[in-house]
């Protein structure tokens, strides 16, 4: 009899413990999805390829390519802690709407107030062996055209188009900006730390029942301004060269968090 009693006792304690822990989870940490929506902009309007805009140097510019790497994503909570999204490497391409929506699964539940990421591909990954070059990093796949074969490295930001101001054939301009700091000898590093948050203190509330969507603007015209005015007439074609760092300093502030939907 005693035995049975203690058995029942043990069982109830177990149940109780279970109940408590599972309750705990329900309230605070049910993971859920979160989507980052990258919207390409030209100043105050949506970026349309083939449409003419005016850059900071007063030149007319028409775009045909606007691609960039977003990696090492971190989501910032209101309490100052962050969630690092494991192995996060994404290529956002101007001509591929699906690439502009990055849905993260199993994000720990909670209220997020900001997003941090690297614009570019970190040096460790940039120097990694071929088995790690999959998905967005596959030079023969998604990274086609975003990888310098002759100088082992990714093009972090690629902006191409035409402008009457260009000195290149066909009035084309090309900005292929990369450089992760060098493998064995140091060289330019155009990776930028980006951090965006809502100016209106909006929060993205993640749980298993809500799927927030964070809208981030990327303004292509920022590539041409602050701190350096980039004139197509003076620089129609910039690739791996010291001057590329001025362009990278411009694109460092091209992102902003526009709004958050909590559905």
């Amino acid at each position, binding site marked *: 009899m005693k035995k049975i009693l203690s058995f029942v006792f043990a069982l109830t304690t177990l149940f109780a413990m279970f109940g408590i822990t599972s309750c705990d989870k329900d309230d605070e940490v049910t993971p859920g999805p979160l989507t980052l929506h990258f919207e390409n902009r030209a100043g105050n309007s949506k970026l349309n390829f083939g449409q003419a805009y005016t850059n900071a140097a007063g030149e007319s510019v028409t775009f045909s390519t606007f691609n960039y790497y977003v990696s090492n994503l971190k989501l910032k909570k209101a309490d100052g802690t962050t969630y690092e999204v494991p192995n996060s490497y994404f290529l956002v391409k101007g001509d591929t709407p699906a690439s502009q929506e990055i849905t993260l699964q199993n994000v720990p539940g909670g209220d997020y107030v900001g997003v941090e990421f690297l614009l570019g591909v970190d040096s460790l990954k940039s120097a990694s062996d071929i088995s790690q070059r*999959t998905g967005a990093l596959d030079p023969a796949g998604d990274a086609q055209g975003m990888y310098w074969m002759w100088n082992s490295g990714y093009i972090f930001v690629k902006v191409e188009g035409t402008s009457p101001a260009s000195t290149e054939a066909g009035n084309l301009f090309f900005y292929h900006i990369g450089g992760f700091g060098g493998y064995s000898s140091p060289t330019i590093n155009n990776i930028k730390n980006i951090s965006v948050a809502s100016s209106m203190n909006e929060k993205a509330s993640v749980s298993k029942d809500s799927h927030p969507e964070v809208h981030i603007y990327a303004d292509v015209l920022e590539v041409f301004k602050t701190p350096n005015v980039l004139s197509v007439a003076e620089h129609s074609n910039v690739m791996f060269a010291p001057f590329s760092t001025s362009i990278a300093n411009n694109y460092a502030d091209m992102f902003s968090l526009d709004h958050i939907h909590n559905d």
Partner: protein
Amino acid sequence: MKIKYIKLIALLFGLAFTTFITSCKPEDNQPDISLFLPANFPQPVYNTDTNPITPEGFALGKKLFFDPILSRDSSVSCGFCHIPTAAFSNAAHPVSHGIEDKLGIRNAPAVMNMVWHTTFFWDGGVHNLDFTGLNAIQNPVEMDEQLPNLMVKLKRQQTYRKMFTDAFGSDEINTQTLTKALSQFMAMLVSANSRYDKYVRNEAGGNLTPDELEGLQLFKEKKCNTCHATDLFSDFSFRNNGIKDSFDDDKGRFLVTLNPNDTGKFKVPSLRNLQYTYPYMHNGSIGTLEAVLQHYAGGVLPSQTLDSLLIQPDGTPGIPMTELEQTKIIAFLKTLTDPQFIKDPRFAE
């Protein structure tokens, strides 16, 4: 009880039989694919643990290396520029000559002893052997093919689907399997059976003449071996050896580091198989070994980044050498010729 014993014996027999068959297989119809690590070489750099060489992977890599399907119009293979009988260089072509006879700007180096290289290409822009093929395939003046398109072309062929399956366990043809197969073939291209190698390893056939031995001595005295170091004959550093004094058409290592001090510096090449790999230098500008030695003795051109080893204490550029000394050094350099390597049937097209 009895049945158990019989079963055990049958099992043992079966096992012995299969080991017998499999152990026979490689000798019967497959080449020896163990990586040759010569006793006189340092430790290799390429990590074969990440890409173990197998008979199937090697065979696939070899087929890819010699298949012009890798170029846009199926005209040019890797072996077209890296010719086995030229120690996998492009003999007689100063600069590479690719699809539609388009000319590159640099001389195709000998693809040999690649597992010891720390960087690839004359400017060291590529750091891992696995990435070297991708460059040639996409280069508009070499093979000018788009990689995704190449994958489609390869997948269309039954032979390739089978060979990829045999080598990597899946007929999925992707960047990883394509590059690893090419690397398995290139890793195997080890040249270390020259007369000189046999001499330093005390092997049969390792006799050097008095002139050749004096040449070896001079090679060290004149400090050639500072840059052309170890038995790989390169320290794999980037140096300007004074073949030009203006580098506007090809800035060399500068293109990778953007450091002005690297202008005009190129990767120190190996000196093996020179008799097969002419013309010499990154731009193929020197045609004979005699002319190379004359260059070091009296033709070194000064510039900002000229290597200090090539500047004499009084500021005169070059390494003083008599004609006789030059002849002896050349005699020594020719002992680095490895006919066994270029005739190896495992590597022939």
